[in-house]
């Protein structure tokens, strides 16, 4: 008897059984037509699109930070970059709203120049980026740490600055790592509920006017209609998430 295999299979089952049960119930006994409605697919579309944009922002903005943390011992930087992932996410939502609050001079200023986070794409994408960026940073930091330092030391010895070495040596050899980390980050963003339920319960801008992100819509269905519609909509959303995970496995190969 391979006990390690048995224990591993049991612990894996603890994680996946509720998910597969939900898929079975969602498409089977508890299936409700509203779970496949146009509203659900629009919500999923908004979630996937905004999560993809937030992942792209993470790549553009946070890759240099991940590289810096990988090459320099900086406990403070590492701790600060992990803060958004380690505090309750509704707090992130509240914090984002405080930035544009008309009760503060800075908030008044931002509103006066048209920057508003409340029920806007900007707010939704900002929230998703803040909560998912720590995952991206951590993944990329580990990726950069796994790279062969001989290439970079050689480049530095050839007179390249640290920034030039990052741009011309580390980055061109990090495509796969960035794609993998951005997909992990995107998956995390797609599952976000806490912050966006405060910042962008729905979006009041075209082309998704009045559409809620999928996790928020599922919560709405649960509170308005009960378990059946929420389970069906969840099952559809889970299929999208599984597709993302399959893509991630393919990229990681």
């Amino acid at each position, binding site marked *: 008897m391979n006990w390690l295999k048995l224990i591993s299979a049991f612990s894996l089952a603890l994680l996946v059984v509720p998910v597969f049960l939900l898929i079975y119930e969602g498409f089977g006994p508890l299936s409700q037509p509203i779970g496949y409605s146009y509203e659900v697919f629009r919500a999923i579309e908004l979630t996937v699109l905004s999560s993809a944009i937030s992942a792209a922002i993470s790549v553009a903005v946070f890759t240099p930070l991940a590289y810096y943390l990988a090459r320099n011992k900086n406990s403070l930087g590492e701790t600060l970059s992990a803060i958004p992932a380690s505090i309750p996410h509704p707090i992130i939502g509240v914090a984002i709203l405080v930035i544009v609050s008309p009760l503060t001079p800075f908030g008044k200023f931002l509103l006066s120049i048209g920057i508003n986070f409340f029920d806007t794409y900007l707010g939704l994408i900002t929230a998703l980026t803040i909560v998912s960026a720590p995952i991206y940073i951590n993944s990329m930091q580990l990726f950069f740490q796994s790279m062969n330092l*001989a290439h970079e030391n*050689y480049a*530095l010895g*050839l*007179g390249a600055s640290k920034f030039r070495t990052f741009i011309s040596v580390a980055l061109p050899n990090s495509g796969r790592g960035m794609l993998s980390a951005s997909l992990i980050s995107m998956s995390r963003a797609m599952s976000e509920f806490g912050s966006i339920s405060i910042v962008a319960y729905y979006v009041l801008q075209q082309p998704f006017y009045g559409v809620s992100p999928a996790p928020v819509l599922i919560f709405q269905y649960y509170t308005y209609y009960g378990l059946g519609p929420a389970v069906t909509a969840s099952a559809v959303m889970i299929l999208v998430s599984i597709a993302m995970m399959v893509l991630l496995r393919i990229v990681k190969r």
Partner: protein
Amino acid sequence: MIEAEVKKKLGSFFLDASISDEHFICLTGKNGSGKTTLLNLIGGILTPDAGHITLNSKKITNLPIEQRQVSIITPDSCIPHLNVDRHLVWGAKNKGLSIEQDYITEIKTSLGISFNGKVRKLSLGMRERVALATSLISKPELILVDEALSNIDNHSDFVDAFRNLAAKAKIDAIFTTQYPEDSSQADHHYRLESGKTTRLF
């Protein structure tokens, strides 16, 4: 002229080494004797616990790698995504040097670089030839070669060619090897044993 007197403790290993010479210097020693540690200290990858490093009368002990004018080459040294011709001039371009095509051709011919393609797809020996040629073309004051000569075909002829090119460009070089017989091609020979250097000639 490289002058180094350095001390470094790494775990239970203690390096207490000194070198003071110029031209083509051979550093021999068994695995774990401290050859790579010493080169890493001279190249700036490691910082000494005590001591000093001077290159052509300039103190470089605390300078970052990119400001030392010291090129470090290991068997893994290369810019993998570049093709050979772009690789060869990469370092020179970083330093804003204008290099004559004739000089590049001379180096390619002398070091047997008659191939092209992405550097990551080359064999280990070919990559090492390209890495060494790139370093020469970038004209540092010192080239550190850490076991990166041993995978090259016609080893002895190649070392001679490399030595002549370095001498012509007034570049000093320190190369490490596990084989004491390689020292016959060097101007000076140091042996490292348990972290201590001995100058043999």
